[in-house]
């Protein structure tokens, strides 16, 4: 349903994103994982057509057969909210402080459908029910600051799915929330995607959270998708050394559904830190931090695909971590 091909985003002469291939199948939940600054948000923005004005984008973002990169702001606004919904990291800042909750949840409905008046209100109340918010009738008259962080994020989700999109892109939707609230929101996203047969692209720096939510994962580093595949395959047999390092920094990855066992184990230390924009090495972007790097790594690795579409770009693949 969503295919990125050779997508490049350049800002101020620096290549921020270079994704040769990224696919999302209908009904699937794809996780996009990487350390902070690896280009996750930029990728989401590139799909949404909400990149900063000064960015130059090339390649193609095919959504349901249509290349979104060829659309202008007006045409793209018919896709956003209606066919692709978005939820962002900081719910407190993502809601308009001067506008009532009801107005913000109904915004996509009013923009994209012919519903009017009471029909819109009825739909908003139903949406607030679906995201499990109490007393929707009074809630829709309230302002964002009167809600807790978790409630605000539920409101954002309700607003994002209001016009029944086929795909929801959630960029670190729970990062700003505390652990118990996180789990509730994640469970909500899973059940919404199942009930509505809505695909999900879930962005997080936390492999544990992705494992909890997603069936597939794409690992991003330096704006490159370095590895992708079914979550169990990637976790069990990481091929790219960056994925292996992520897993090594995230040791307790049990197989059961116990949420608290999955999260809270943040990426601890991968040798070195993510370079600033424009400071990445040539070839494999991870080269300067990789303990397995060889001379070959100064040229961009060619993709290798094994069973179940497990795909990676690494000259010296291996699944035994960095030790």
């Amino acid at each position: 349903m969503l295919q990125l091909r050779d997508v490049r985003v350049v800002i101020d002469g620096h290549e921020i994103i270079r994704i040769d291939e990224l696919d999302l199948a209908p009904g699937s939940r794809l996780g996009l994982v990487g350390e902070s600054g690896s280009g996750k948000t930029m990728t989401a923005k590139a799909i949404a057509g909400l990149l900063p004005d000064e960015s130059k984008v090339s390649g193609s973002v095919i959504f349901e057969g249509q290349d979104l990169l060829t659309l202008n702001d007006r045409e793209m606004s018919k896709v956003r909210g209606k066919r692709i919904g978005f939820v962002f990291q900081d719910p407190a800042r993502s809601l308009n402080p001067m506008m009532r909750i009801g107005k913000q949840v109904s915004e996509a409905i009013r923009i994209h459908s012919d519903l009017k008046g009471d029909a819109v209100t009825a739909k908003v109340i139903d949406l607030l029910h679906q995201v499990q918010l109490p007393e929707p009738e009074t809630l829709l008259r309230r302002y964002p600051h009167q809600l807790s962080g978790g409630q605000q994020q539920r409101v954002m989700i309700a607003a994002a799915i209001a016009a029944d999109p086929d795909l929801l892109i959630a960029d670190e939707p729970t990062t700003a929330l505390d652990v118990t609230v996180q789990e509730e929101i994640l469970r909500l996203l899973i059940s919404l995607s199942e009930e509505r047969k809505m695909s999900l692209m879930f962005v997080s720096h936390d492999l544990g959270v992705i494992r909890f939510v997603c069936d597939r994962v794409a690992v991003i580093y330096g704006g490159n998708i370095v590895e992708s595949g079914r979550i169990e395959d990637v976790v069990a047999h990481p091929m790219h050394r960056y994925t292996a390092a992520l897993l090594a920094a995230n040791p307790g990855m049990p197989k059961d559904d116990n949420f608290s066992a999955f999260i809270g184990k943040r990426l601890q230390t991968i040798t070195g830190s993510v370079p600033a924009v424009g400071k990445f090495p040539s070839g494999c972007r991870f080269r300067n931090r990789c303990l397995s790097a060889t001379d070959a790594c100064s040229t961009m690795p060619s993709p290798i695909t094994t069973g179940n579409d497990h795909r990676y770009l690494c000259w010296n693949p291996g699944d035994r971590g960095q030790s």
Partner: protein
Amino acid sequence: MLKHIFRSFFTLIFAALVGSVVVFVLLRQLGGDVVTAMLGKEAAPIDVSYLREELGLNQPLIVQYLNWLGDIARGDLGTSYAMKLDVFTEMMRRLGPTAMLTIGGLIVSVPLSLILGTYSAINAKKIRSGFVDVFTTVGIAVPTFWVGLLFALLFGVRLGWLPTGGYIPFTEDPLQSIRSVILPVAALSLGVTSVFTRYVRTAMLDVMNEDFMRSAMARGRTRRGAAIIHGVRNASIPLVTVAALQFGQLIAGAVVVENVFVLPGIGRLIVISTLGREVVVVQSLAMVLMLIILILNFLVDIAYGFLDPRIRDKESVDV
């Protein structure tokens, strides 16, 4: 909210008191001897001592000040020396043109600034917004009296479209009355609009970077739609504060424009009184104008509290 209103009211009273001291002391004490200023250096001693007595200048300064304040509070703004005119009556008689100018200036400049500033912010990275920048730069740079003169010569004398001077009261003939203030209002609005457009543009640019603007676009708003529906509302909070400052500009501009277009308003009275060395009149008028600006500021401050739901809530919990 109540607390917010109390605080604004306290600010109003305090500012008015400080302002009154400044007006009083500056003009009476620092400007040299009032009587010499009014009568000239060669005045007869008998006139001098008579005027000193009449103005109460022989009393201690603090008594003079308190008397003056008490008079103003009672609506007694004093009497002009030369014509023996009651200043309050004279001011009320001249209120019409000044009110029409300032209200007209508001009606023209506020919406125009909002439109121009928003347009310029939405198209910030495009050449189009450059036209707005050129307009505002020119508008800020040229002095109001010059613009007034230009408009009078061009649209009044050369093209003969509109009257270049004189004033017809609104109650007498509304249409002609409005015609008579079109050019002055235009001249007055140019500078104020230019400054305010800049403020709007800056406030809008700040708001455009907010996360909730991105959310609005993510729900299907175009950049322009998000700016108009979400942006203006949020930008209005910082703007309301500067709008209050613009009242002062507007009134100052009205003083200038009344003189260019010979409109019998309060601004004209101020200039005539200043030239005639009518210290009492100038002092009272300065005080009244200051009070008007302070009260408008106070009202705006309260409006600000009602505008922002966060302030509305927060303060009602506090009190």
